[in-house]
């Protein structure tokens, strides 16, 4: 898999990453923020899965994320294996303002741990954290309409979205950070609270995944890439690790009409 890219970009490692989670928790927004650093409303829903790529730099290595952003609706569930097979990483997203979405996330984690690649790195992301940050938000409704992604941001008028209709920001939180953190620790997941709207925590997810991914393993397992990787691992001189967003390869998905 990696050899096609490694031919063109030196030391680039392809990482297949899949996003899973209940509908309307913000999967597409998380990807969009990461890939093009933007926040877009009214995107067409994901049919099957959307495919995007993003390169990022970790230490002296370039990772090329191939991101599969899957459809959230329950009935697409049976298609998910098609997308998470061979994935080296997964981001399971839930919505901090919706307790049920964590349950769904847990079931995804279970499924991944059972069915997917055994070395898969899984990150749990509690999205829409901007909705529950008390001081920062000026009003309840405006940010809510912006920050819901995928489905909810589609509803132009905030009042229409049933789950978040104003009110005291802190009261919107249904999943305490500690609870999710405890679960993530127990299940061996990376854990973040994120906001696709403000960008908080998004880059970190992918950085931490990059750190945790057994890159040597990937290189070794892909033809041709194995030889080069050996030396690269030793050079840990530059401790600076930042995700390089300048090389944006956002691929347009969906209808181009």
């Amino acid at each position, binding site marked *: *898999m990696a*050899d*096609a890219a490694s031919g063109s970009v030196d030391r680039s490692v*392809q990482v297949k990453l899949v996003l899973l989670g*209940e*509908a*309307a928790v913000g999967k597409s927004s998380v990807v969009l923020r990461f890939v093009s650093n933007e926040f877009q*409303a*009214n*995107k*067409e*829903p*994901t*049919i*099957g*899965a959307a*495919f995007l*790529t993003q390169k990022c730099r970790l230490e002296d290595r370039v990772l090329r994320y*191939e991101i599969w952003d899957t*459809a*959230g*609706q*329950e*009935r*697409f*569930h*049976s*298609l998910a*294996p*098609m*997308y998470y097979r*061979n994935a080296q990483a997964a981001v399971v997203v839930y919505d901090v303002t*919706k307790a*049920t*979405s964590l*349950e*769904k996330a847990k*079931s995804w984690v*279970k*499924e991944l741990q*059972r*069915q997917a690649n055994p070395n898969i790195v899984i990150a749990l992301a509690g999205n829409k954290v901007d909705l529950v940050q008390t001081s920062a938000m000026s009003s309840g409704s405006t940010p809510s309409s912006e920050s819901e992604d*995928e*489905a*909810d941001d*589609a*509803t*132009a008028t905030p009042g*229409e979205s*049933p*789950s978040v209709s104003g009110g005291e920001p802190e009261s919107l939180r249904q999943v305490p950070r500690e609870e999710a953190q405890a679960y993530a620790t127990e299940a061996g997941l990376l854990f973040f609270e994120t906001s696709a709207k403000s960008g908080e925590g998004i880059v970190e997810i992918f950085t931490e995944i990059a750190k945790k991914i057994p890159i040597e393993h990937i290189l070794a397992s892909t033809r041709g890439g194995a030889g080069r990787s050996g030396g690269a691992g030793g050079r840990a001189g530059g401790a600076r690790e930042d995700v390089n967003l300048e090389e944006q390869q956002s*691929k*347009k*998905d*969906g*209808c*181009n*009409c």
Partner: protein
Amino acid sequence: MSTISTQLRNFKEPTKDQLTHVFFSIPEAPPVPLKDTEKQGSGDIEKMEINAILSFGAQEVEDSYAGKLHLLPPYLAFSSLDRKSVRFTLPLSTVRRVERLNARAGVYALSLSTWHGMKIIVQLTSLRPTADLFCGLLREALKVELQRGQMKAVKGFVKTCYSEGLVSLSGVSDNEREDGSLITETKEGCPAPETEFHGGLGLRFKFPGDPKKLREASKIKLWTTYLKNHGRNLTLLRYPQCTRLVQVGLPNRLRGEMWETLSGSLYLRFSNPGVYDQLLLDIQGTNSTSFEDIEKDLHRSLPEYAGYQSDEGISALRRVLQAYSHRNPEVGYCQAMNILAAAILIYMSEEQTFWLLEVLCDRLLPGYYGPTMHGTLLDQRVFESLVTRCLPMISDHFQAVDVQLSVASLPWFLSLYINSMPMVFAFRIVDCFFCMGPKVLFQVGKAILKINGEKLLQIQDDGGFLNLMREYFASLGDSAHPESADPRARAITRFQELLLISFREFAVISDETILSERRKYRNEIVNSIESFSKRSAVRNLKTLGRFTKEQAGFIYDALYKAMCDVPPPPTVAPPPSLLATNDGNQERAETRIGIPTFQVFLSEILTWARNEKIVINGFQERIDREVAEHELIDRLFYFWDTSCKGSLSFQDLVSGLDGVMLNDLMENIEWFFNLHDKNKDGYLTKDEVLTLSESFLFIFRHEIGDAYLGAVSKFMTNAFEYGDSLLPQHTNSKTGATEPRDIGHNQPYLNLATFRMVVLADEVLESFFETDLSASFRLEPVPDLELPPASSGFLGDLWSNIATQDNRKMFNKLSDELGKTIGKHQVIYRPTIGRFTKLEEPTARESLISPPAKTTSGSSLGTVVVSSSSSTLDTSSIHDNGPSSASVFSPMPHFKAVNAAFMERTPFAIDDAGDDDDDSDLDMVHGEDDDQVMDEVDAFLEAHDSGLTEADKEVAKDLLNAEPVK
């Protein structure tokens, strides 16, 4: 995902009749869709098909075509022999006159005039009596339509069709219009034709694409001519030119109507006036998960189109999707439907869109959008196999680099390419799709792969594949041969090239190919979906208890099988959708079963929850399994229903079984005690002791010998003895230890410790609780369920016709009857515990006789006898059935007869105390009589209840054989 759907199991291959209906896009008759055999006999207007030659047009605009004329009231349909050149589906109500033509001798021809004066001439080429019969039936059918007032409805309906305006506005009425009434009609309507006909958002918000570039004007002209000559909307005759005109792209203004005409949704709209408006009224104020899902996607459906930036478009989209999901709750709403509906609404009114969605989801793309999306998966599999066959190099390469075709092709099929290609091109594929059927999706898909063949052989992964496809779709408007010197060749776009290759090179893919490929892979898909949902159901269990995953899987299988037999009531399914949280949450979308399904479920895994009759009739030996019904089963149900919902989930069943299957002696005794301790106060009342004894009797009902009966009897004696003796000082106040009667039947009476002591006093019961109770639950792999046979075409069909459940039952019955007449019929109940296969255990028997003498508390024993005898009567009457009939009808092995005798006697042994008749011989005789009657009733539940004579048998046989013929 704890929803368990058995829907996939219920799939039936369409009958030939249904296929014909589908081919002609004839809506299923709303009143009971009976099996075709029944229909023919039931006095409905008969269907008939007849060989015919269609000639059309006085000016000989078209050739004549040989084909078949079908009378499918209320429709008349024709298709040419190749099934694609020429066809029509004509509602009978559009026919105004039918004349027998004076023609040469031997030619039997009819002239049909439609309401707008178009004449169709069909020559019936079958033998004369057949033709006469056909005409007779046609006359009847027309009469019925006239009586129904459908003839009048036509004129109102066609006003909603754009084509009518198009034809009449084009000025000159053609010479075929003798009727005249039409012309005045439409002319009256002329002032405001725009408001009359149905149209889509495009009329207000513009249609996509440049009308000049699309050559709208000339297309409209061509169509106007065609429609004028060949009928339109309800009366459209589809000649080859029609298909060709569709393939060059429908004009925007006519597109909506042609879609509904070609797909046949027009007939649905015609035959269901007012239904859509009624639906809109019905859904007001309701809510469902589908509605919530729809709401999320409304603003994400073709958001670039102006119409969906306005409230008008959004509301229309909402209404259509809501109405559809409301009417089809089993499909509900699936992402991608929003895109389809949004696209269709540009060209069609809401009502038209609604009916087209019905046709799409129901007929054209069956199973695509349901909760399992099995149709989508199936067609992806079919597509894959077709690619392997026609484009082996690509398929090999994909396999080599481990790329799945579906990552790209799934959205193509799911959204009819609308989500993948620029809309103007996608709509042209949709045009062909509605005209030529689902095979178009496959043809186009393969053409795409073929055109990109060389590049596809270079790709290395899924991502590369998707990018290549994206680039290709973006370039569809470019010239296919930019370097060509010939300007005409340069003008050919890549899209035109795509269509050309689709329909030229892949014309071999026919509807039949797809049907047979679907048949081939259906099992595979269903099994993979089911094992997937099984795995996730097991995975999503909150607790497995002490079971392994494999065991939980067996429980799931048994539950699944039970659900196939007895689907849980539909009321179980809706409640989730009433809750107002989001989809995908397991708490809400949970399958729960009611008692009827539970009984079947238990009968799968619990030996005493079923009656197994070993039937030997000289021809076969089989085991008939029936579900047992008893208060104890219901008791278990409510015992396991810990959340008191009146229904059980998979989790409840696992936990419930965990509570009994893996227990030791003491735990089992306690479990049984708790099961009968209704108020959970730690005491059984006297009534509960009796109920518990009845439970014992129920469990032991098929055991051979008296040991268990003795044990139960002893148990009762002891229970009351100990219970009385342990009663509090209460007894002292009266006349002494012998007066425990004060205690009410519903007062706490026997505690667990006492119960345990009483049970352990009897070794039969002890061994029951020690091992037999747990062992009577058996988790074994359920034998593979029968899927509708999907294998080989003809043989498969044939087999599916023969090997139905009903036929098997019938065969069994028949062989039983034969067995009886030759005296070889015997029925033996299979013991549920089966510990004692021989008749020993004399000790138990002795104790059985002694109790009445020993017991002092007369009245309390009286109740014992009354209630228990009633229960034993039930069971004994079932008991009797087997053994005694055996003793009558067959030279049974001697020991079995003895068994029977013993089992006969046991009830009376108890009855003795209640001074019943002691004459067991006499009762034996009665029993036999009863049995005979019962056997016969069993055997002839359907028809006759007298004994079977040879003549009867003949008649029955004849009847069975006769049905399909007539």
